[in-house]
């Protein structure tokens, strides 16, 4: 019986504590919103990309598969419309430019495709537009001075592109470890890709 009484007392105390906390949080939220009626403007890019079910399909779709070290990261606003003037498929003559991040990469080894020279630049949407950062949603984080395996598509008149935002860059140091215990069939691992070239 004592236990029951203790539990009921605890219940009542609990209700008081959380009711009080709830009010404090609500008041703070209201004050915060009133103080910052207009918040900072943020730009985010959602990209509908082809997604790949296996390492085989990913590699088959890639023009380039290579390992390289990211030397530098810069931002450019690019007009990636394939044709100058009227687009032959859609009729659109003038297209808006898109903010991109350019990854300058020192090539370590090439598994598929041809890369002239020892460095290559890859582009991915997201970067700086009108002084504001534009973030590509859900994209793999790529940092300078790290080495990755990349899968990319090439274009005649533009930098090569990542095949998609999530399955195109594999951190060599991290993914070699991750691959050994990954059981998620949805995830393509670095070792699955490398196995294709053994």
């Amino acid at each position, binding site marked *: *019986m004592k*236990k*029951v009484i203790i*539990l*009921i007392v*605890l*219940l009542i105390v*609990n*209700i008081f*504590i*959380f009711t009080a*906390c709830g009010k404090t949080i609500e008041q703070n939220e209201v004050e915060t*919103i009133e103080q*910052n*009626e*207009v*918040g*900072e*403007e*943020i*730009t*985010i*890019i*959602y*990209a*509908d*990309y*082809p*997604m790949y*079910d296996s390492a085989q399909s990913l590699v088959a779709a890639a023009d380039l598969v290579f390992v390289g070290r990211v030397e530098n990261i810069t931002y450019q606003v690019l007009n*990636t*419309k*394939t*044709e100058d003037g009227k*687009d*032959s*498929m*859609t*009729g*659109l*003559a*003038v*297209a*808006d430019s*898109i903010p991109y991040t350019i990854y300058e990469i020192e090539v370590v080894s090439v598994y598929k495709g041809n890369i002239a020279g020892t460095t290559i630049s890859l*582009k991915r*949407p997201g970067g700086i537009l009108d002084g*504001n950062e*534009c973030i590509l*949603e*859900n994209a793999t984080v790529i940092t300078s001075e790290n080495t990755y395996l990349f899968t990319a*598509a090439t*274009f*005649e*008149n*533009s930098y090569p*592109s*990542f*095949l*998609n935002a999530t399955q195109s860059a594999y951190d060599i140091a991290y993914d070699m470890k991750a691959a050994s215990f990954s059981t998620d069939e949805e995830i393509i691992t670095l070792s699955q890709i490398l196995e294709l070239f053994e």
Partner: protein
Amino acid sequence: MKKNQKIGSLALLLILIIGYPITAYAADPYALSGSESGSITVKSYSSHNDTWISYIDNGIKAWNGSTAPVEISISSPSNNSIQAARYDDSWYGLCTKSYDETTGYITKFAIQINARTIANAATSFSDFAESVIAHEFGHVFWLCDNPRTKLRTLMYQKRDRNVLKLPQTFDIDNVKAKYE
């Protein structure tokens, strides 16, 4: 004694339920940003050829004709745009949204559709293009990519774009929950 144990267990359960701090975050199936209202405008896209105008029309009708409380209309002074062309990139579609960090409300958006990649991948070109267009408008209505559900959804990036081109019940219900 057993009765006391039952009362004790019930009391403990109540403590856990009432005491558990409930916090609402913008999360799957929602993005952090979206249109404040279900009624949105987009600039005229008449600079495209008739074929693509009809694809964009149908992508818009996919939402306007659904039971979701939304309406996309064309307005010349709109901040929002949709353009389709062949682009030197691997994406099918982009939706670039600028939004107020405090409210999450979109201040402007730009949708770009890549006819090049669609032509390479599609078995039914018009359906594929319309699927990509409708998907991008889904982002304007707060929907995120790849929601964690086993239900059919327009927002899944592994969907068969040749077939799945309309907002599904899951998508419509989520948009309804935002605007109704």
